[in-house]
């Protein structure tokens, strides 16, 4: 009987956790390990997004002149690999960086010489043959880091 009571209590306590499994609140803040020697301040434009494999979206953020930025992607286990590209929005949408050419790196860093909006196109890759399941959401963190440029360019 004691075992039955323990099982019931265990189930009751685990229900809220099951219910929140697609809740990405504070995902990157609590679950992402940033690259070693990452000495950036986290920018307020960072965010967490619930995603499913095969989904894509766009993310538009403002980058100020004279700062060094780091863009990190942190996917919850099982979500899939991330492909992304940066687009300039000056007149037309022009590609300025494509993760495909950099072995799917999970983060990239750059020095920004002019204030601008950068549009980031993100796609979560799904395994070939695997069906898209929009109900099977997992978390993706986009972490923007910024710091002042150490040396004048």
């Amino acid at each position, binding site marked *: *009987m004691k075992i*039955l*009571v323990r099982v*019931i*209590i265990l*189930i*009751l306590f685990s*229900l809220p956790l*099951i*219910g929140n499994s697609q809740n990405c*609140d*504070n995902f990157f803040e609590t679950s992402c390990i940033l690259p070693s020697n990452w000495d950036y*301040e*986290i*920018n*307020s*434009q960072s*965010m967490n*997004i619930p*995603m499913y494999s095969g*989904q*894509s*979206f*766009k*993310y*538009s*953020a*403002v*980058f*100020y*002149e004279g*700062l*060094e930025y780091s863009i990190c992607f942190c996917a919850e286990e099982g979500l899939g690999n991330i492909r992304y590209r*940066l687009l*300039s929005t*000056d*007149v037309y949408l*022009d590609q*300025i*960086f494509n993760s495909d050419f950099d072995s799917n790196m999970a983060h*990239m*860093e*750059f*020095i*920004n*010489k*002019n*204030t*601008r*909006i950068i*549009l980031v196109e993100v796609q979560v890759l799904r395994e070939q043959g695997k069906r*898209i*399941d*929009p*109900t099977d959401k997992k978390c993706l963190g986009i972490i923007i880091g*910024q710091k002042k440029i150490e040396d004048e*360019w």
Partner: protein
Amino acid sequence: MKKKSILGLLVVLIIFGLSFCKSDSSKKNAQDQTLEELPEEMNYEEMTYFRFPSPEEIFGFIEGSNIEFIPSIVNEPENYKSYSNSRIQALNLGVYFSDLAYITLFEKREETFLYFTAIHQLCNNLTISAAFTEALLDRVHNNLDNVDSLVSISGDAYRNIINYLVINKKENTLTLMGIGAYVESLFLSISTIEEYSNKNELVQKIADQKYAYENLYNYSVQNLNNEYDKEYIEIIKNIKSVYDKMETIKIEDTKMSKNEDGKLILSGGIKLVMSEDNFNELKEIVTKSRNEIIK
């Protein structure tokens, strides 16, 4: 007694189980749909998330470009007591965050606590006190001698509130807070310039805020859906329309290249040119909007 406890637990379990089964059945139905058949809110294929810097980041960018401290231009911290409408409270929560970023930039420690208190009180009034707790206010109190800590706490507080509002599906409040913060930060920056000069670095940095306004405008359109909020979108739209009149000069094609240390450098793009007419028109619209918000 034992039997009663077990019975009680079983009843609770059945209630939980029923609600759980309900969400499970909706899950099953959604699984049977193809992506094309999904309701609009579930199809994120074309979703664009717009983001914009915080007041602390705006003033961090402006810092060093001869911005002055003028004590009389910030909104008085005790004015929060007169804001009874929740929309006005949300707007002025943003206003106070910008005031806080402005005064911490000039290391005005005594005033800092008053602004943190005003923010704390407005959070209470907006029933989002969990986003700005007494503990955070205590942290401010214990760090009044350390400006770097105050800047850091201010940033943490802003991010906490954003997270809290997003988690609790209060994007409407978050948008109004963003509008208040942006109008105030622009008002503070522009009010410190007595006379326009195209050589003034601060004028250029004010011009560069065009991009943040673009994203704030798009974010506002996504999140302020009811009739009562339309007038606040108009505020941003009017400011954006002045920005849109600015001349743009192409520096060179935007390109990513590597320097000798192997670092990526993003260069080129467009230089925004703010004329004296643009500046004066912007100053007039921003001052009018800001005075409406804080009255």
